[in-house]
């Protein structure tokens, strides 16, 4: 093979992927910024409005509330999933009977389509036929629809997320724990360290890189949650569960305000990227 062909090969191999990434990611992003500077009056050509959409966004109490809802959802869900996932991983890290079947069963919620997860919980939460509602009625004596309650709908959605994604934390933390070297643990045991001390001073610090990756991935996904909310509450009752992605969806595709929707999406992107950059920088040494 002539020299220039050898030199070109690495680039040629990567070119199709790069072109796709450019056409379907970079180009739309640029287009998105342009869109966010426009207004889309019904039936007429889009009008350039400068930073008007962003100005409106700053004073839009609905968007602020939507972000707050999303933040609560993300923090509570991720934190609970982490604690439960870690507990499960510690519980199941040693060899025991049927461990293959048990582990496989535990990860099922995670691989079921989010839309189907929505259906599953509709069948549980529903006021007239739901198993959950039946239990509540049996205990409290009154009929209660969780998803139509302004105070309970968001916690109910968080429960769904915890059910669906604790397996993710479990699986990643388990893999992390199992890949830790054995020697420090044996040494600590010989020295008579208590299981709690071993956990706090050995397991957790050594597991830190894995924990950071798991928390970051999960938090970013939770922050843009959509499917389950769409299927279960559509953001309701009122706007009690209107997470950011759902609000953008409604703004752009129900009310055809593409410009305003795009500006919200850009704001959300900026938040997500600065968050990941901050986390990555803070843990640069350990990840």
């Amino acid at each position, binding site marked *: *093979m002539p020299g220039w062909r050898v030199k070109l*090969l*690495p*680039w040629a*191999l*990567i070119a*199709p*992927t*790069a072109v*796709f*990434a450019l*056409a*379907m*990611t970079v180009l739309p*992003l640029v*287009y*998105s910024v342009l869109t966010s500077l426009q207004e889309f009056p019904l039936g007429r050509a889009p009008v350039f409005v400068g930073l008007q959409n962003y100005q409106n966004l700053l004073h839009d109490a609905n968007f602020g509330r939507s972000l707050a809802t999303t933040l609560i959802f993300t923090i509570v869900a991720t934190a609970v999933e982490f604690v439960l996932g870690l507990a499960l991983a510690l*519980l*199941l890290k040693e060899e025991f009977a049927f461990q293959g079947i*048990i582990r*496989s*069963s*535990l990860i099922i*919620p995670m*691989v*079921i*389509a989010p839309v*189907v997860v929505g*259906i*599953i*919980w509709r*069948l*549980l939460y529903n006021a007239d*036929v739901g*198993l959950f509602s*039946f239990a509540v009625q049996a205990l409290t004596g009154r009929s209660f629809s969780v998803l139509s309650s302004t105070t309970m709908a968001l916690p109910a959605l968080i429960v769904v997320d915890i*059910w669906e994604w604790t397996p993710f934390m479990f*699986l*990643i933390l388990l*893999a*992390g724990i199992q*890949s830790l070297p054995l020697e420090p643990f044996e040494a600590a045991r010989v020295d008579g360290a208590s299981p709690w001390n071993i956990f706090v001073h050995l397991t957790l610090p050594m597991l830190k890189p894995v924990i950071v*990756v798991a928390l970051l991935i999960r938090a970013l996904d939770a922050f*843009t949650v*959509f*499917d389950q909310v*769409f299927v279960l509450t559509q953001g309701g009752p009122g706007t009690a569960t209107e997470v*950011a992605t759902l609000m953008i*969806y409604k703004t*752009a*595709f129900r009310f055809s305000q*593409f410009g305003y929707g*795009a500006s919200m*999406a850009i704001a*959300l*992107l900026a938040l*997500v*990227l600065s968050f*990941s950059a901050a986390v990555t920088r803070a843990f640069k040494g350990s*990840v």
Partner: protein
Amino acid sequence: MRLLTSNTQKRRLWFVTRLFLIVLALTITLLPVYWMVNTSLKTQVEIFASPPTLWSQNPTVENYVNLFTRRHLGAYLLNSVIIVGSAVFVSLVIGSLAAYSLARFGKDRLQQKLNFWVLAPRMIPPVALVVPLFLILQQFGLINKPLGLILVYTAFNLPFVAWMMRSFFQEIPVDLEEAAMVDGASRLRSFRDIVLPLAAPGLVATAIFSLIITYNEFFFALILTSTPRAATLPVGTAALIGKTQTLYGEMAAAGVVAAVPLVIFALLVQRHLVRGLTMGAVK
């Protein structure tokens, strides 16, 4: 002697506690799934029975039959197979080439920058791209057409495929290829005859992974497709919820149809699940 008994007792107590916690976790995980399957096999009358019946008193497949005869579930399923199949195939071919390049020549500084650009799209939340992609595809007349969604899914699979295959390629010793090239085989030939066969298990795992991600994808499918002509199974299923209102049996049956193939696939690639979920960050 006392010490010994208390130790045995302690161990026994821990064993029972552990067993209890495992059973509890399994119940919480599986009961909701079982409830969907159970509901899908009940008649409309039995679904509304109070107290609810723990298993169907006279199991029926009526809900499933209705889905295919009245609710276009067959069409949605076919759309999903076509769209997901094409996107996974194309992204696997293109992405593996990029992955090989990243694994073998990735030390170059310029190339390292490129690594970032291959991965970057994965960091961008889908919602940031959905408005422009909708407007662009609309201009090309690709809304509610399978091709539109195939393009989008291929693009979203690519970074994933490239990074996952890269970690598989890196595990194959370079010596094997170099030996072949010393014997006169070209780089591409040694890739085809030596690297690809060795990477086959990884290729299968990656394929199943992108299959799971695309098959379950809802957000883009909802916005870019709408009718049985192009809509995928998740969209069809979600539309059903709106249309059927209280036909919980059909809703449950649609959920079962959508979930079963994927659960089977996922259990097949369990070994690689962690690598896939973290894009190679944790093995």
